[in-house]
Each structure stands twice: as C-alpha cells, then as structure tokens.
C-alpha cells in the first residue's frame, strides 16, 4: 500500500512537472535547450493534396 502511494505521488509529480515544463517552454523559458538555430523544413508532400505545416519565412 505504501509503495503504491509512493508511486502515485511520483507519477503526480512527474505529470505536474511535465505540464510546468511545457508551459515554460511555450512561454519561451529555456526553449533554447530544445531548439537549434537550424530552420525547420517541412516534409515534402507527395501523396496528400494538403501540404505539411508550413514553417514561416525567417525574413
């Protein structure tokens, strides 16, 4: 029972931490840790009539 409670607490902490990190990343805090300066190139669309998400022009 005690180990189950501990696991539940660990999972809750991980979930909350993940949500906080997600929020901070979207707010721009520490986003440099996950991103590079390389410009994102969308994948070529060969079979679907709809193109992939289009990355904005950096200029």
């Amino acid at each position, binding site marked *: 029972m005690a180990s*189950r409670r501990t*696991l*539940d607490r660990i*999972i*809750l902490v*991980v*979930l909350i931490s*993940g*949500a906080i*990190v*997600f929020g901070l*990343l*979207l707010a721009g805090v520490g*986003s440099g*840790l*996950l*991103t*590079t*300066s*390389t*410009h*994102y*190139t*969308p*994948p*070529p*669309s*060969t*079979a*679907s*009539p*709809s*193109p*992939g*998400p*289009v*990355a*904005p*022009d*950096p200029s």
Partner: protein
Amino acid sequence: MTSTTTRPRIRLAVALGFGAAVALTLGIYGRIHDPTGGSLVTLFFTRTITLKAWLATAAVLFALFQGATALRMYSKLGRRTGPRWLRPAHRISGTAAFMLTIPVAYHCLWALGFQWQSGTRVLLHGIFGCLFFGALAAKVLVVRTRRMPSWALPVLGGAVFTALVLIWATSALWFFGTNGFRV
C-alpha cells in the same frame, strides 16, 4: 435531486471546464504566437520531423498498452482484473506517453503554430492536438478526484486515446506514408 448526485456532476463539470480551458489556451496560443520556424534538437535522428514522427509513434504504442491494461483492469478483457502490476504499469505508461508528447507538441506550437489554411490534414491535426491535451487534463483531474460519475473515466480515457491516435494519423502516419520509415 440530492447533493450526493449533484456534487459528482459539479466536480465533473469543473474537470471538463479545466480541460476545455487547456484546449482553448493551446489553440489560442497557437494562433497568436508568431511561429519561430526553428528546429528541435534531433538527438540521433536526422531531422526534426523524423524525431517527432517516432516520438508520436512511441506515444501511441504506450496509449495502446494503456487501452489494453484499462480494459483488463475493468474486467472488459478477460474475467478477472489482471495481475497486481497492471495498475502501476497503466499509470507509468500513461505518464511516459504524456512526456513523449511534450517535445512534439512544443515544436508544433512554438515553431509552426495553429494553421488553418494549410489544408484539412493540418487543420484537423491542430484541433486534435488541442483536444488531446484538454481531454488529458480533464482525465487526470477525474482520476485524482473521488466520487466522480462512473462513466466519466472510461469516456475521458477513450477521448484521450482517440485524440492521440488521430493526431498520430494526421502527422506521423501521413509522414511515413509519404516519405517512408526514415530515422
């Protein structure tokens, strides 16, 4: 109507409201935030898109395990509730799936934004993405709150699972189908 029946409904309404707020917030953020167009750190993958496609695929595999273990725990898959390790395995796999979706969703929102003029697939992908995180937030609240309506957890779990599979189908599956299984 007694308070014993109204209170669970109020709790559920609060959880659903919180989930809706999460989904709306992400959608609004995706629209008003100027997309950076940057790439993710790709680790050992060759490109950002392959990293995202494989992370999403891993999350869906965890979600499939989640669905199977949930059905077993509630005796919908077999007569008994399953071994003791099933419940912690269910929770750990769900947490792992959530963690895998964070860098993917972060890149979608941060670098690309919510796009509604790039075709049906992209639009649906954005909508399902917002729905997924909203349903997930509501589900976590329902799991952690006592005396919820008995149907709430399976319905929300199903919504989370369905949204994740649809996200995957409109992104990773499309990518693998058009570009092959690249790493």
